[in-house]
């Protein structure tokens, strides 16, 4: 796995020196800071349940921005850029397994996403110094929510890496990922409206429920609940797209 570790280090370095990463971070924390401040005001006025506060901060625009837009932007360069510039040739002729390269790129994208997302916990931590919230915020459910976000983003990034392996056009890769992620997160709501929220067909309801990747996050992890079947679902999805990426990359050596 040394090839994967080397790839992770190099990719993280590339993310760190890319202005795009910093633009995302600045935009995200500007929007999120504003939204959290707004939520604090609402909880103050309506005397909201302090333990509901973290959950309230997940269902805001900046979360959707991170889930829908950022995976496409972070992963668009993974393979598409390598193919566009031709550096894929030096990468594929280096003594490293294709799977290690694919895994390394996905892990690096997910770690960088986590680096972007994790500091948001400081906003919650800051609430402990607020006169109304005091020290009442319980960080157990917050951990569950962050784990859920890590798994959800891992799945969406895995698709992004796969999309990037299909083209040498970084813009196309980003658009493909954003469209797919939007469809994946929004289609369960559309399907429910088509089939009815209380469909008599058990399997239809279950299928829609299982495929609801964002719903699984917001209904379970965001409420502080960790369900191992949901964890397995995300990990399975990640494995599926990482495998597809490996097939896409390694097929170059077959034709």
């Amino acid at each position, binding site marked *: 796995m040394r090839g994967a570790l080397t790839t992770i280090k190099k990719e993280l*370095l590339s993310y760190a020196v890319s202005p795009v990463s910093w633009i995302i971070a600045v935009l995200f924390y500007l929007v999120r800071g504003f939204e959290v401040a707004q939520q604090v005001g609402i909880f103050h006025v309506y005397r909201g349940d302090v333990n509901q506060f973290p959950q309230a901060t997940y269902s805001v625009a900046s979360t959707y921005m991170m889930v829908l837009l950022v995976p496409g932007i972070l992963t668009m360069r993974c393979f598409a850029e390598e193919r566009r510039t031709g550096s894929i040739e030096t990468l594929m002729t280096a003594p490293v397994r294709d799977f290690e390269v694919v895994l390394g790129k996905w892990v690096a994208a997910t770690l960088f996403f986590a680096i972007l997302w994790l500091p948001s916990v400081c906003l919650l931590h800051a609430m402990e110094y607020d006169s109304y919230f005091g020290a009442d915020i319980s960080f157990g459910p917050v951990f569950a929510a962050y784990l859920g976000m890590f798994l959800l983003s891992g799945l969406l990034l895995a698709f992004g890496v796969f999309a990037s392996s299909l083209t*040498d056009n970084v813009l196309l890769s980003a658009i493909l990922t954003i469209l797919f992620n939007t469809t994946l997160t929004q289609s369960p709501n559309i399907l429910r409206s088509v089939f009815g929220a209380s469909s008599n067909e058990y399997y239809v309801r279950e299928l829609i429920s299982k495929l609801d990747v964002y719903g699984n996050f917001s209904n379970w992890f965001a409420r502080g609940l960790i369900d191992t079947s949901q964890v397995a679902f995300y990990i399975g999805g990640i494995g599926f797209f990482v495998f597809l990426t490996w097939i896409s990359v390694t097929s170059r*050596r077959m034709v």
Partner: protein
Amino acid sequence: MIRVVDLTKRFGPTVAVDQVSFEIGRGEVVGFLGPNGAGKTTTIRVLTGYHPATSGLAEVAGFDVQKHSLDVRKHIGYLPQEVPIYPDLRVVEYLRYRAELKGVRGKDRKLAVSRAMSRAGIENVSRKLVGHVSHGYRQRVGLADALVANPPILVLDEPTSGLDPNQRRRIKQVVRDLADEHTVLFSSHILSEVQDVSSRIIVIHRGSLRADGPPDDLVAHSTRATLHVGARCAGSLLREIVAVLPGVVEGTVEVADGDNGVAAVTSAIAPGQDPTEELGERLQKAAIAVRELKLVMPTLEEYFYAITDGSDDQGESVDDDVGDEGVAVAAVPDSEEGEQ
């Protein structure tokens, strides 16, 4: 170290490499020549494991390229024609990354990077972003990358492409120095460069092997030389004497009567023949004063022109003008082989 037997590579209906066979032994420096679109880059890409062969065998360091691609890649340092490197990394960061990717770690890595930079002459730009260095330096960063893991085999695809004369000279010197420890296969369009550096050349044209051997031998034994004679006698007499010499190609004797009774004759001489001594004796016997007698050997350029039919392959062949995805594209005048 490199063995290729009946190697064929097709991209759809297009045959890029057609049953090419050659062997390169340990410590040889071999020049790989051919016009644009001849199949050089495709052959190199098969050898480095980037493209699979359609049929035939390619072995590097005793490993089958198709079956043991990873082992092959461990033994090769590869410099593609268009050096594609990450513009947002510093030169030294890029080389550290490449060294680590190639299994050079810890203290060895620092030493290997430093040695590779020194050999390629890029220490002075080590802290610069790769995207900010000139084309020549970028080419040398690519060369340092190929050298960093000190592989036994180096495959350099047009390493001097787009460089100025000083930079070319430097790269040639590096290749010469490498010859002591490495097996080197390098392709180039600059024939004099190949002649300077290589002990042997392989010429490929339209996907097929056209020549393989030491450049001087190939030139001497495959291309006509030109005999120039100037003597004080009648042109018709000089023609008679020259026409019967061994090696003179029939119908190529040309006579020009000059001033002061000096006639000049030129004639093509068959490959491997040298009739100058015999001609000298005959002229001496006939008591003819000789003003000039020389056999002009053909150049590698003339030889290359002859065996590649004088073709530049532009607009008439798409043999190697195959895109990265295996899709044949139209040959573009003056296109570089890096686009293949």
